[in-house]
């Protein structure tokens, strides 16, 4: 049985053109390589 209120919560406001720049800056572009580099860096720091 579909619950209208619950379903409605799944819909989000669309980004408008004016908000595109902010959204671009907020976008998380980290990928697995970045994570690996970060992990390796932390490991080196811990050794030192």
């Amino acid at each position: 049985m579909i619950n209208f209120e619950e379903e409605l919560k799944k819909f989000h406001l669309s980004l408008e053109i004016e908000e595109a720049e902010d959204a671009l800056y907020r976008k998380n572009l980290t990928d697995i390589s970045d994570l690996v580099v970060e992990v390796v860096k932390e490991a080196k720091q811990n050794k030192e």
Partner: protein
Amino acid sequence: MRCYNCGCDLTGHNFCTNCKVDVTNYKLVISASNLLYNDGLEKARVRDLSGALVSLHQCLKLNKNHVDARNLLGLVYFELGESVQALNEWVISKNLQSKKNVADDYLNLIQSNPGKLEALNATLKKFNQALTYCYQGSLDLAVIQLKKVLSMNPKYLQAHQLLALLYINSEEWGKARKELERCLKIDINNTIALRYTQEINQTLGESGTPGSQGKGKNTVKASLTKSKNVSDEAYQYQSGNETIIQPYKVSEGKTVTSIGNLIIGIGIGLAVAWFLILPARIQHAQAGVNEEMKVVSEQLDVKSATINELESKVKALENEKQKLEGQLDGFVGTGGTLEDVNNLLQAVRIYIETPEEVMKISEYLEKINPESVTEESSESFTALYDLLLGEVGSQLGEQYYAAGMDAYQDGDYELAVQELTRAAAYDATNVDAYFNLANSYRKLERDMEAIAAYEKVIELFPSTEKANRSQSYINELTAE
């Protein structure tokens, strides 16, 4: 492929030739990323856009620098109506690879058309407004707004989904199903659309007993049942106090409606032709006929005038013909000039051959019309006639006078009149001939002719004894 540590191009070795870092696992990650891109591309090609989105997002989680995956992701977003997210992906892609990048073309295409960009933005704003209406409970306004959105961008998936949800909420199953079908045309494996469809099918197929009510305010309340009396192509459900029968195959209804609309359109077209076009055509044709009638009438008038003129000429020619025929008869026919000439010539011939045969000469001379001698004959004819008459006239006069007097004395006054008339004609100086002619008329009691003859005597021989006697007889006759 570039080294994640220094950015140098990698070779076939498992380490970077520049910074010596181990890239074995990195290469595996890049390979997995490529696999996910291929998977996303395959799904996008069959319009499984939801699946493509998942694969491309995973691809970019592994390798954020995958330009093709980012471009494809932007394209999928744009196809789903998420224009801003599409632009973001293309902008990032362009920053990653500024040359020979298809994202550049996409961006130029949108930016070169400010109207298109404004329309996309207006669509997004209206959708947001519709969603706000939903949050506020103004569902009717939301439906109206979403219809506007979809008229501006029919591929806006989220708007279709939201509109379907609103229709489901208002228990308009047919409309909801239509919207969900449109969702699935855009994205064949769209999870929400499939779930809503499944929910509707379950709700319509597994409904409870008729008349059962919904469980909550915002819960789909319809309780549905398959009616035994309703065919398999339709279903029946109870909405409040109303029993609603709705066909499964909406498309058939559409077809019937389309045919109906087509027939109505043809009918309207025929009506327009009958009431608007046909009268104008008839009027035009009548105008043409009137014009032709006018031309024909003018030609008829001209021909009638010509006929009248010709008839007048015919009449004139007939009159002239009659006149000429009369003239010809005057020359040729009995008593005509030619006959008179012939008679005169015969009389002359007899006079030359046998001058003593005066009676024969007289026969021919008497055939000559005396009037024609004076009026119509030529001078030579008149001269010859007078000459012959001068030669034989006195003799003829004497003979006729003698014959006349014999008849008079015998009491044959009719014969006396004939003979004395000839005698007077051949000898105008014979007063006795005139006088006895008058007496003959008197004896015959032809008083008027007698008086005329007596008056002739008085006229030709005035102051003579015969004139006096004539006057006496006239007095007597007039007294009677």
